[in-house]
């Protein structure tokens, strides 16, 4: 218990920046309570940029995650909701009609109405806008050759990441493919660390050793470079959830290209056989590299590809649609009914990666059309403005704040030094005594610690 206490208080010291450790349980609770009410992922900026006690944010919501903490005795006294300080004539909550999902092997689908509160709207907006700005910043840095290698950008698909995160809890698991920056962010990694990893600096989430496709966080298993390999991994994570009986599930994402990989069907088979709590989500952005869905797939109904596994086809440009569908799928899995396959119909504005201009296999007009008619952020903005849930100025201010934050993160990512050469051989094995690693020549004997 003493060790537990000291470890927890150490964690809190790092979070809060205070030098004294918690001496009593009540001090610990007070320290913890300041953080329970923060929303994620806006919290990272607060935690990093100051070593002062945090100021309460203007708009705070009690998220599902905080509710989870509230259920443990440690956080019981700490949960609080701060009422919105916006003007009284803004709508606090609205119920919107959303598109009906196409169903496969399902009697009923997700609801056709979604409730959106002002706080949720602002949060989704913030998440999507941060992802958008982060990806555009990455594009800029890549063109300046500050980022190198692979860089697969997610702009256009933000509603998928935001919707998925809104529908699951922080204790659930997520694994995706290489277009992973958005999920790295929604799973709790700060923009600063994502950009730092992209620029290959020591402040990166993988200390510069992973790169764009290999970023990890608790309950987020990357970032996987091999197309389709993450799908059996995701089924395995779901197996672990089932094994431990913890009512968690794994959201396993893949693209329309990976949908043709054999290992997917192997994973589907075992997931269905063993009723694994796995939500398989195909982010169909219409192109796998340069192959449009019609050119690559004999069947473009990706939601039916699970055959005996129930499927849903969802409008991936509407964050509420995605949220409701993933919630439906999560409930399905948690009820022990087995896996479910979802297809999110979405679109990417950029090419496959930074080395692809993205116009040799599709027309600029097509991209423009989606941008103007179907942009996920514009859609949410329109929904909020037309229902009087936020003012234009407020959203504009939010845009400016986010732009500044991303700018600051990029500045940091560019200035941060590269990883030291001493670190090059570390992290080969876990919990092993230090070992010797052969360098480029027989006299170069390098050292690796766990």
């Amino acid at each position, binding site marked *: 218990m003493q060790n537990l206490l000291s470890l927890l208080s150490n964690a809190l010291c790092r979070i809060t920046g205070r030098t004294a450790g918690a001496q009593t349980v009540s001090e610990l609770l007070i320290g913890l309570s300041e953080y329970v009410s923060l929303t994620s992922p806006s919290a990272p900026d607060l935690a990093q940029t100051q070593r002062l006690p945090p100021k309460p944010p203007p708009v705070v919501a009690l998220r599902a995650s905080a509710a989870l903490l509230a259920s443990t005795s440690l956080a019981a006294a700490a949960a609080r909701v701060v009422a919105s300080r916006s003007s009284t004539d803004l709508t606090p909550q609205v119920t919107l009609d959303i598109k009906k999902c196409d169903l496969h092997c399902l009697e009923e689908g997700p609801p056709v109405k979604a409730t959106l509160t002002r706080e949720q709207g602002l949060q989704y907006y913030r998440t999507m806008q941060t992802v958008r700005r982060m990806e555009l910043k990455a594009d800029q840095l890549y063109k300046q050759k500050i980022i190198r290698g692979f860089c697969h950008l997610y702009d256009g698909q933000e509603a998928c990441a935001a919707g998925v995160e809104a529908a699951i809890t922080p204790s659930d698991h997520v694994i995706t493919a290489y277009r992973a920056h958005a999920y790295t962010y929604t799973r709790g990694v700060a923009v600063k660390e994502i950009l730092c990893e992209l620029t290959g600096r020591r402040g990166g989430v*993988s200390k510069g050793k992973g790169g764009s496709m290999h970023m990890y966080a608790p309950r987020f298993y990357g970032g996987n470079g091999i197309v389709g390999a993450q799908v059996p991994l995701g089924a395995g994570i779901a*197996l672990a959830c089932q094994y431990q009986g913890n009512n968690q599930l794994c959201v396993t994402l893949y693209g329309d290209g990976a949908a043709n990989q054999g290992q997917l069907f192997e994973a589907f088979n075992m997931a269905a056989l063993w009723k694994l709590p796995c939500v398989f989500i195909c982010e169909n952005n219409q192109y796998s590299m340069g192959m449009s869905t019609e050119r690559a797939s004999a069947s473009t109904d990706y939601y039916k590809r699970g055959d005996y596994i129930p499927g849903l086809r969802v409008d991936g440009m509407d964050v509420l649609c995605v949220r409701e569908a993933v919630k439906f799928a999560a409930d399905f899995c948690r009820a022990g009914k087995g896996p479910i396959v979802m297809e999110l119909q979405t679109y990417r504005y950029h090419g496959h990666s930074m080395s692809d201009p993205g116009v040799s296999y599709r027309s600029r007009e097509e991209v423009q059309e989606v941008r103007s008619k179907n942009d996920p952020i514009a859609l949410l903005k329109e929904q909020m403005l037309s229902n009087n849930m936020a003012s234009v100025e407020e959203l504009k201010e939010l845009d400016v704040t986010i732009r500044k934050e991303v700018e600051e993160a990029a500045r940091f990512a560019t200035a941060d030094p590269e990883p030291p050469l001493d670190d090059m051989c570390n992290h080969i094995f876990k919990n092993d005594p230090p070992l010797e690693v052969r360098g480029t020549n027989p006299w170069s004997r390098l050292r690796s610690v766990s």
Partner: protein
Amino acid sequence: MLAPPSHRRKDRFKMALSMKSVLRSGRNAVSILRRRAFHRSAPAAAQVTVRDALNQALDEELERDERVFLLGEEVAQYDGAYKVSRGLWKKYGDKRIIDTPISEMGFTGIAVGAAMVSVSLYKPDDFHLTRKLSAQRETIFFIFYFFQAGLRPICEFMTFNFSMQAIDQVINSAAKTYYMSAGLQAVPIVFRGPNGASAGVAAQHSQCFAAWYAHCPGLKVVSPWNSEDAKGLLKSAIRDDNPVVFLENELMYGVPFEMSDEAQSKDFTVPIGKAKVERQGTHVTLVSHSRYVGHCLDAAAVLAKEGIECEVINLRTIRPMDVESIEASVMKTNHLVTVEGGWPQFGVGAEICARIMEGPAFNYLDAPATRVTGVDIPMPYAKILEDNSVPQIKDIIFSIKKTLNM
């Protein structure tokens, strides 16, 4: 098949332990008693086959740690394609011993994914910026860390030839992940199964993968020879927090070896990364792994009659290789012969020779090192061809004499 009542204190103690586990898992009483009699009731140094040693290791580790589970084709109801997992399904049930469909890539990926659900502790860094998650995440993470353990899967390949279909998951998803995540994501998994030549199974079922897997950083590759190796190394592999490729040998499964009392205890492990000198000698160092250690010992016995004393080193671990033991031996004997079943090019023997050249032992060599390997062809089927495709004792003797210039 119950053993006669034993009056030795140790056996009574073991019987008490067995009774305790019988009481805990009543319906498995019969199989436990039967198994106990099969393995543990004989006095002192028992004759235990490699298969039974592996079975013991699996049983003990499954019992010791709730997170350990076995998955693979036919491991459960069939009792294992080579009966290595006999009795385990009856004892531990569907949750811990999982039969999979014939989908190597799929189930290997699933095994690796299950191993990934092991949360690495966030260590404060020496570097100026620690990785920081949102405060909320970090708090949740710390709370959950203490209340949730990851899993420790054992992924069985019916033979390692089939692991080729899943090799992407072994290398890219398992081996490299701890490095790519800079220590955030560990993968404590064991991949095991028979490796190398069998009898009459021809080209597609006879390949040795030691060199293939040992090539990759991030993996530990282990190749036991006798029962003690098999049991101790498998236990170490399961307890290791890293991906371990455990290369068994089908022809060794049925071979009995004497196992000391100590080796039969539940906490007996053999450290990974340490070779063992099976036979002391002065004239030549023979380095081998798996089945060919036995061949080396046989060759050494024949040569002893001619006055040539061979030192036989059982590598036990291919990666990380215990080069120090080989060097120490070569500095004593001045001659080196490596013996393996795999193909010569880019193989285990090639690596040993290169390492000796790069180290202090080179100056002690009185002759170039010799590699005795499998013939550089796909494995043929006909018995006479197959027999001549792998190192025989006469080949080892011949090579030793050539190396000693006799």
